[in-house]
């Protein structure tokens, strides 16, 4: 048990930091300090944390429009992320990307993506490049349940299986795509069957049980790194909030939302940590407070941070 303590506490801290970052960002967006659309993953932190804590710095990830958690869990700098959301010069992308285009190549975060399934071909190619260069890092591709209805899902999985590429696909199944329930737009038995029909072994896990996600991700990442070829991790989870910060998702049945919130991955892990005597409620609260303090400090700093020099609007178009 205690052998788990370190990892479990790390998972807890990772999730708390994601939650704190996004709650802080939501508040800043409401306050008018964050321009553009904001997609938060509150309720889904177990997936990002459980997967990314099993990755090395030289592993690569691609993400989607709801990517703050993936970036943070992969080690992206908080200041650079918050400043990017604020559109400031110190943002990871110099303010050119914003929330939907966060990237931190220094930690292998190859970018969020504003196009559903847009990260799939890129992750597959990253894995192919890694293999060509003879390296032993892997690529991890995060996408939502909505992405499995776009062509690149089929093309990318077939391709990854064909060339036995070191890529782990992670389908974050929050059962909704924008304003439409996944079940209303997805035919057949689902993502696992689709994945296996394309030659990619797939496993479903309760994405709100971060310990289970961590265990499965550890196994699949090891298989992929070991040369077994691609794998798909299907994590069932739930989006507590609306699609964007301005969407209240009023159409969702209240009891469904309420029930889902019971499954909050942070609360579940905390209950378990306490039950197994690995941490006290006070210790866990301290972690949450520390995370919130960190993010609020980042918010304060971002608000005071300089705007980009308008001249930089013309740079980074072509590198040559």
């Amino acid at each position: 048990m205690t052998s788990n303590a370190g990892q479990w506490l790390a998972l807890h801290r990772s999730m708390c930091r994601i939650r704190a970052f996004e709650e802080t960002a939501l508040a800043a967006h409401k306050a008018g300090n964050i321009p553009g659309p904001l997609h938060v993953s509150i309720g889904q932190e177990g997936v990002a944390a459980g997967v990314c804590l099993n990755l090395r710095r030289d592993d690569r990830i691609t993400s989607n429009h709801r990517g703050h958690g993936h970036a943070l869990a992969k080690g992206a700098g908080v200041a650079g992320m918050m400043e990017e959301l604020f559109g400031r010069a110190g943002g990871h992308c110099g303010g050119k990307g914003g929330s939907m285009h966060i990237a931190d190549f220094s930690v292998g975060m190859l970018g969020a993506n504003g196009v559903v399934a847009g990260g799939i071909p890129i992750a597959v190619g990253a894995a192919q490049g890694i293999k060509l260069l003879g390296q032993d890092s892997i690529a991890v591709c995060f996408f939502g349940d909505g992405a499995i209805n776009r062509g690149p899902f089929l093309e990318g999985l077939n391709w990854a299986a064909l060339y036995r590429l070191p890529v782990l696909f992670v389908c974050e199944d929050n059962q909704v795509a924008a304003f439409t329930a996944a079940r209303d737009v997805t035919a057949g038995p689902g993502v696992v069957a689709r994945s296996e029909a394309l030659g990619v072994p797939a496993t479903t896990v309760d994405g709100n049980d971060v310990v289970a996600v961590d265990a499965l991700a550890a196994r699949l990442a090891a298989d992929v790194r070991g040369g077994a070829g691609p794998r798909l991790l299907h994590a069932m989870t739930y989006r507590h909030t609306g699609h964007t910060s301005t969407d209240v998702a009023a159409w969702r049945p209240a009891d469904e939302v309420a029930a889902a919130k019971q499954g909050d991955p942070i609360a579940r892990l905390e209950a378990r940590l306490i039950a197994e005597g690995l941490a006290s409620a006070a210790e866990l609260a301290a972690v949450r407070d520390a995370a919130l303090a960190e993010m609020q400090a980042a918010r304060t700093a971002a608000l005071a941070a300089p705007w980009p020099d308008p001249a930089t609007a013309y740079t980074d178009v072509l590198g040559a």
Partner: protein
Amino acid sequence: MTSLVEALRLAAWQEMERDPRVWVLGEDVARGGLFGQYRGFLERFGADRVVSTPISEAVIMGAGLGAALVGTRPIIEMRIFDFVMCAMDELVNQIAKIRYMFGGQARPSVVVRMPHGLWRNSAAQHSQVLEAWFAHLPGVVVVAPSTPADAAGLLVAAIRSDDPVLFFDPKNLFGLEGEVPAAIAPMPFGHARQVRTGDALTIVSWSALMPAVEQAAVTLAARGINAEILDLRCLWPWDEAAVTASARRTGRLLVAHEAVEAGGFGAEIIARIAEHAPGIRVARCGMPRVPLPFSPPLEDAIKVTPAKIVAAAERLLAR
């Protein structure tokens, strides 16, 4: 007064009431669409005619074509222009070519709605203005209105047209208010709207940039410069006669558009004038060849503004 997005909603509603072969498909349309442009459609017209689809742009586009071939009139909703990049084979290789390739057997009676342009700092993948591409593409009509009345009239015409009509909703102007008749008549394609008369120069623009052009004209007027303004409304067919006549009158032509200047539709307009009405002084005002940045000061730096239009006009007058 009616907002532009409401005018579009009323126009599509009117046509769906009028013709049972008209239907709409796209993501979330049964929930009213991303901008409320289909609000109430599901309740009124039912799930067979108001089809919320999977995130499958290629089939949203291609299924619209297939359904047109058997006699229906689909409104293909792309949600945001940039996503049409996921459906370009269906649009460019199939829809635009099918009537010609098959010797006139096919009737690709589709409207492809693509809310485009800058809007709320949406950055590089949600703000593109590539309308010029489609003026260069044989087989399609290209519409880009800027007022509630024009948007409504042109959408009605688009829905009734047997040709594929690419309808560029100016998403940044959805809130713009204007008068819209209770019964919306189809507005013929290819006719520019004279927004303002003047003698110093002619400014041609369209879509979301029109308000900026009108502001610029006010500033210029205050400086004693009377600009004539034309809203092109359609990029293909486009009203070359009106543009040429006005430019001949004023002797100077400025084309302003939200799109990147290099290779934008302004180039075609200027080239036609230079070829067929030599002697008219010409200029363009568009964005630099740069993707859309997210940060407000960066977006402001590259986007076309009233001040940039005024400066371009004064440079042109100084020549």
